């Protein structure tokens, strides 16, 4: 039986082996991926991102427990937990399982730790491919926990259908932790550790930022008079999704059922609005373009003599060529 066939038949060891092969860009892994690809497209991919120390792993632990114990029929759940590789040694200590020990012993759950292996943006290069393997293997819910650098982790929004951005009170400047891209990618905002002081101000900060991103019609009292500010006409009112804010205490399971409810609502919203298809399309297109770039680069480099490349690089280093002139030279040389 081929590796792919074993995985479709539910062999967990084969699944685990393939994850390794895919991670290592092994040709055998690619072959199995090709075979599995027609079986993908069914899973709900849920991204979990946020600054370090916000409790992402504990939150995922509780969410998975909820799916397995409270949802009928219980979906099979996979977790891909990405942690950073050391830029110096290339090694990594992957510790997300420590917070997920409750999930041990449940054969409907599969947790895989992944080192980022030098990739930026919160995911490893092969995270998307790993998710595809789980999808084909019949895992209906796939959590993808990002590195947790806090900012700049926007890759997850491209990969996941639903992105949770996790915050916690008292992590210093509330706005700082969520500024720029990270808030815009949130489909659902979670304030974890909500039993801590400062939760009010964290929620207020998030609401204010959301308000900027999604302006709504507002009615309020000003000097005793009722005032109305209409939403700007550019606001995408109809069938737009306003990210809800949830308070949770993951270690105690507080707020988890409501959060799971929101995740289900978001999925429903995506399906009804057509965004599910749009996201799938954008994701697969991005994946194709990444592959294309990689393949073309490899082909190009294989056709050009290393000495030539080195010469041009040297000229750029000496400032006798600009990088653009260098590229022009290299690409024309290849064609000639």
């Amino acid at each position: 039986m081929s590796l792919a066939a074993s995985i479709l038949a539910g062999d967990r060891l084969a699944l685990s082996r393939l994850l390794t092969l895919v991670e290592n860009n092994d040709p055998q892994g690619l072959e199995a991926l090709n075979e599995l690809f027609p079986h993908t497209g069914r899973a709900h991919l849920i991204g979990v991102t946020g600054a370090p120390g916000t409790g992402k792993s504990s939150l995922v632990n509780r969410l998975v427990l909820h799916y397995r114990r409270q949802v009928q029929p219980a979906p099979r759940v996979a977790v891909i937990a990405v942690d950073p590789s050391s830029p110096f040694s290339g090694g990594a200590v992957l510790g997300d399982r420590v917070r997920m020990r409750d999930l041990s012993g449940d054969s409907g759950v599969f947790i895989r730790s992944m080192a980022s292996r030098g990739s930026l943006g919160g995911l490893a290069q092969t995270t998307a491919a790993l998710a595809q393997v789980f999808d084909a293997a019949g895992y209906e819910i796939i959590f993808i926990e990002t590195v947790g650098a806090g900012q700049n982790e926007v890759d997850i929004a491209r990969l996941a259908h639903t992105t949770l951005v996790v915050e916690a009170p008292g992590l210093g400047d509330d706005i700082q932790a969520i500024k720029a891209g990270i808030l815009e990618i949130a489909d659902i905002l979670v304030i974890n550790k909500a039993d801590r002081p400062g939760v009010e101000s964290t929620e207020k900060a998030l609401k204010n930022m959301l308000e900027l991103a999604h302006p709504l019609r507002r009615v309020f009292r000003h000097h005793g008079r009722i005032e109305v500010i209409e939403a700007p006409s550019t606001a995408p009112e109809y069938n737009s999704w306003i990210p809800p804010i949830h308070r949770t205490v993951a270690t105690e399971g507080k707020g988890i059922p409501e959060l799971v409810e929101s995740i289900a609502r978001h999925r429903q919203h995506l399906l009804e609005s057509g965004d599910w298809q749009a996201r799938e399309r954008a994701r697969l297109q991005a994946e194709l373009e990444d592959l294309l770039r990689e393949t073309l680069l490899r082909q190009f480099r294989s056709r050009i003599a290393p000495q030539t490349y080195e010469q041009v690089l040297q000229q750029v280093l000496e400032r006798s060529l600009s990088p653009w002139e260098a590229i022009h030279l290299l690409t024309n040389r290849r064609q000639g």
Partner: protein
Amino acid sequence: MEERKIRVLVAKPGLDGHDRGAKVVARALRDAGMEVIYTGLRQTPEMIAEAALQEDVDVVGLSILSGAHMELVPRILELLRANGQGHVKVFVGGIIPDEDVPRLLEMGVTAVYGPGALTEDIIRDIRAAVLGTTA
């Protein structure tokens, strides 16, 4: 092209709550370029075997200070084999009486380290055990 990444599960089976040694080893292995999955304290043999399966590790490193190694280690070896992971190299570190070492090795443990073991030796032994047999 790229060097094969060695994946190691560092686990603390049993009830003793001291993981300093396990953490020191985990860090040293990371600094040697390995990917270390750390599972935390008080793992049952079942939990360790399950994690080894899901993470497809080459090596399981067990830190045992409780004296229960003669019960825990054979059980873990048995579960690994039952899961089709008989190829996984098992290393044991901790407080292991000298007379138990040959018995552990006989069961299939690759190496046993006591207090004062050098991380360089552990790294060298892991590389030899993993790359020597599969490279």
